């Protein structure tokens, strides 16, 4: 055998801490974490980033990113981020929330932070269940989807329809960018990164509130293999939660 020249073609971003993941096999949080970290580096804001984490599996983002962070109570990350930005206006501030946190207990905080046009960004990871607590029904749980608190499946008449957050956020005056992407395929992950970049840039360019929803898999609580979970995103989630940009003032060329 001739000697092999090994060439490193894919490494972790420096903003990511080198440690074993605690997330379940097939969970998309790791992908979302990586996208965020890549962008913090590409936008050169790692040293000036103040991260606000939420409650749920997403709280542990602070264990993986090499940035200053504060832990917010359940649902309150946009309010905490508002306070952080008020205190340190020259820093880059973003929050990272799951769907139970953001679309249920934290509904008031996310809507008003967006409406005020807070110069912060929110990364919203939607996997249609409360993950950390064991897979209970979330405000985003799909009709018919079985969870530990809707064992017969979510019923439209009884529990209402799953909430489409990005569409609501896009309707608010202070929002500069609102887009929904998915983490189920390489193509969609690339789009997700594009959207997060836009949401982050809206803060850096002082345009307004930036919001990105990421459709994500929770194979453990969906009781599926990672591959089946990926298929579910394409087959069941995307038809109800359409992908795309719902508001983008940068395209309109104006500030909010």
């Amino acid at each position, binding site marked *: 055998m001739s000697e092999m020249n090994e060439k490193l073609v894919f490494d972790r971003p420096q903003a990511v801490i080198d440690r074993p993941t605690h997330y379940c096999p097939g969970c998309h949080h790791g992908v979302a974490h990586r996208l965020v970290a890549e962008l913090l580096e590409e936008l050169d804001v790692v040293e000036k980033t103040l991260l606000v984490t939420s409650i749920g599996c997403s709280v542990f983002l602070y264990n993986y990113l090499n940035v200053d962070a504060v832990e917010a*109570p359940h649902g309150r990350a946009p*309010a905490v981020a508002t306070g952080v930005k008020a205190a340190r206006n020259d820093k880059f501030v973003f929050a990272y929330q799951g769907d139970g946190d953001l679309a249920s207990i934290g509904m008031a905080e996310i809507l*008003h932070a967006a409406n005020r046009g807070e110069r912060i960004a929110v990364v919203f990871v939607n996997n249609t269940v409360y993950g950390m607590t064991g897979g209970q029904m979330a405000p985003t749980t799909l009709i018919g989807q079985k969870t530990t608190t809707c064992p017969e499946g979510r019923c439209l008449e009884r529990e209402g329809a799953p909430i489409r957050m990005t569409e609501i956020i896009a309707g608010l005056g202070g929002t500069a960018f609102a887009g929904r992407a998915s983490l189920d395929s390489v193509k969609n992950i690339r789009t997700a990164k594009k959207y997060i970049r836009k949401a982050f840039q809206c803060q850096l360019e002082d345009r307004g509130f930036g919001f990105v929803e990421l459709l994500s898999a929770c194979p453990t609580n969906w009781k599926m293999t990672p591959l089946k979970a990926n298929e579910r995103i394409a087959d069941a989630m995307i038809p109800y939660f359409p992908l795309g940009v719902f508001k983008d003032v940068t395209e309109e060329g104006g500030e909010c």
Partner: protein
Amino acid sequence: MTKQPERIFVKGNEAVARGALAAHCKCFFGYPITPQNEIPEFLSAEMPKAGGRFVQAESEVAAANMLLGAGACGIRAMTSSSSPGISLKQEAISYMAGSEIPAVIVNMNRGGPGLGDIGPAQGDYYQSTRGGGHGDYRLLVLAPSTGQEAYDLTIKAFDLTFKYRNPVMILGDAILGQMKEAIIPWQPENIDDEAGRDWSLTGADKREKRLIKSLFLEEGALAEQNRTLQTKYDDMQSYVEYEEFETEDAELVVCAYGSIGRIAKSAVRSLRAQGKKVGLFRPITLYPFPSEPLLALARQGKRFLTIEHNLGQMVDDVRLAIRTVADSEFAPIFPGNLPVPEDIEGPVLKCLEGK
């Protein structure tokens, strides 16, 4: 002739707001509720002029969490509210205590329980001095009784909250907040605006990242955090403030705080004029409670009557303080009633005669 200090005629609420500005408070997060509205109203106009930010939050819950965020950045920040609103802030207050985040919280206590009324009351003593939210923690609680004290203690609150990295509560009531009187504003010197430089969030630039949290899942970590907090609360015990008035030869000492302490002082003056040997002990720090000086009075053989604008809360702390040598009688003023000195003189005379 020396120049007289400038006196201004303001409500207690405005005194608090002005004190906060003098103390370099840079962020205020509020929500409308009577009887504290003059605080956010004043600061909405004045805070931006001082280079700070005023936010009218969507809720009391959000206002307290914004405070958490600003405090985590080591910035002098404040929120204010009144009883029902303070209940809603308890979530963030617990997190701030657990995460050791400095912040100043003002409660202009109104009548309760529930929606109660918008008049004065002291029903939030337990809530203020026992933590108020979930978990085992304490706030440092300051109870001003005049407009001047409201101004002075607000300035002090910001120093204390950074000294201990613990939320500080200013506990007033509708009398303090709404009554107009003369105060002399003053400007503290040598304020350290970056007192949180060693721990606060500023961005991990050429240093290790910082994490401010109250979640401790690792084996033994939460117990260690609670031990740290306990040590801090022990340290706080050395910081007590109180007022003694006519106690030296007093047979009966009235224990009262805040506005009721001030009214009780009038009652003591009036009773002294009648030759009655009564005095006043007025705690200014409600937590830590001034137990030692109270015990010293008890050791002199004095009797005690605690009067509060509630059904009996601080009286527990009075009894705990003097339990080895004495006890305290209690006379309530029911929330919903606006007390006058005669309401205090009656129970005091009854107690004096009932020996």
